[in-house]
């Protein structure tokens, strides 16, 4: 679909949020609480904060909740019944205020959850979610989107992308049919777009490293000492994966009280020792350095090779959340240093 441009007034957003909610859609937007900004359900636009670079946690939970019942079961003395997930119970949602990196992150998740085995739960959630992103006009030292081919004004993954023109107005780029549906439904809120140079409106995030110096070059360094070197500080807490918009690893567990039960999928992290531990006690990734390597390779080698998409969108969340200052951008830069040695 060709991208169509509109004008959306800041004042119209109030109405938009209200109407979306009235329409039965759950609206998630960045909300500031105790000085951290995270996506939370909002019923009115003013609950949303404007003061954020990116949220602490990514927005992935809307399509890939931290815990999801994937099927249910019932037990009687001699019988077991399985109940499929009721996909129709998944609500319509709108994500407002995602950044272009966040939106791009959904593409990565999708590449994991689709493929030859299609995870319909994810797919349905995504289908029912409209993503209205806002371009970045600011960035911080942890951001490195432009180094991984994501643009602070990029439309990939968004259904609508808003870019701030001035204090009162947004440029609204209608990227997908889903976005268009919203515009059509609430057309009174949208105006004709002015002619603007979008690039001048978004942040100018410097390119910090040359991606091509990494791509295709890390895998041969599988046994390099650099992994140990970089990860000595890492305490294996897994936080990076939990906040990351593209980490999709999960665990499946059953809970049951003997009468009823659910099979649940929940977030997991390759940073954990237990993630790959065999019941025999053998563990193929038994040190933190191997697990750190897995994280980098997963994003920069395995996902790109399998799905033709880079596994990291440069949002920098992992680095911000890490309590021991494992800075991904810095690590990538010195990785390049090592590779070019």
């Amino acid at each position, binding site marked *: 679909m060709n991208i169509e441009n509109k004008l959306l007034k800041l004042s119209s957003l109030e109405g938009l949020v209200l109407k979306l909610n009235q329409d039965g859609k759950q609206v*998630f937007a960045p909300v500031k609480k105790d000085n951290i900004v995270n996506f939370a359900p909002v019923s009115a636009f003013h609950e949303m904060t404007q003061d954020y670079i990116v949220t602490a946690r990514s927005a992935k939970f809307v399509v890939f909740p931290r*815990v999801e*019942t994937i099927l249910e079961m019932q037990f009687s003395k001699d019988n077991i019944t399985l109940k499929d997930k009721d996909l129709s119970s*998944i609500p319509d*949602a709108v994500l407002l205020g995602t950044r272009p990196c966040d939106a791009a992150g959904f593409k990565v998740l999708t590449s994991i959850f689709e493929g030859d085995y299609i995870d319909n739960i994810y797919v349905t959630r995504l289908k029912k979610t409209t993503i209205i992103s806002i371009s970045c006009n600011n960035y911080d030292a942890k951001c490195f989107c432009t180094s991984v081919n994501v643009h602070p004004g990029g439309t990939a993954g968004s259904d609508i992308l808003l870019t701030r023109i001035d204090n009162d107005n947004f440029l609204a780029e209608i990227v997908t049919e889903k976005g268009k549906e919203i515009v059509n439904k609430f057309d009174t809120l949208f105006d004709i777009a002015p002619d603007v140079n979008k690039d001048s409106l978004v942040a100018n995030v410097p390119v910090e490293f040359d991606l091509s110096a990494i791509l295709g070059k890390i895998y041969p360094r599988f046994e390099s000492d650099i992994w140990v070197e970089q990860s000595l500080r890492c305490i294996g807490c897994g936080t990076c994966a939990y906040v990351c918009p593209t980490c999709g690893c999960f665990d499946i567990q059953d809970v049951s009280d003997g009468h009823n039960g659910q099979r649940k999928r929940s977030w997991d992290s390759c940073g954990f020792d237990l993630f790959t531990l065999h019941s025999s006690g053998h563990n193929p990734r038994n040190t933190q350095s191997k697990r750190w390597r897995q994280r980098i390779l997963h994003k920069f080698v395995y996902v790109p090779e399998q799905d033709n998409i880079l596994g990291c969108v440069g949002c920098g969340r992992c680095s911000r959340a890490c309590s021991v200052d494992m800075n991904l951008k810095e690590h990538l830069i010195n990785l390049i240093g090592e590779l070019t040695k």
Partner: protein
Amino acid sequence: MSDFQPKIVAFVCTWCTYAGADLAGTSRIKYEPNVKIIRFPCTGRIDYMFLIKAFANGADGVIVSGCHPNDCHYVSGNFHARRRWIVFRELVDFLGMDVNRLCFSWVSAAEGAQWAKIVNSFTEEIRQLGPYKAYMELVKKDKNESVF
């Protein structure tokens, strides 16, 4: 008195309180039927996890009971248990759990009547407190876990 019938489980040691409850039986002392006993070798064995699991499975109150100090069949199990209870009780109180729903007691093999008394009074106390709704909220929230 409300007609709410609380669910109460009692974790007791086999040597003192279980025997005490047996004595209450042989003495035909009558008491409320709400308390159901689970027998452990010693109070030292009673992991605080069992207490949490009791509430998670819908208990309105929990009794933990064993031998009086210096009377432990295993010499010191009850002393260790007491330390654990003190810390546990303070902690869950701090977390906002209702510690009135926890009853710790010493009941010896000879105190059948004392057992009956504890059961009756604790049952009544819990009946006054009503069902442990706050904790059930936790459980319920899990069951219909939010979609997001």
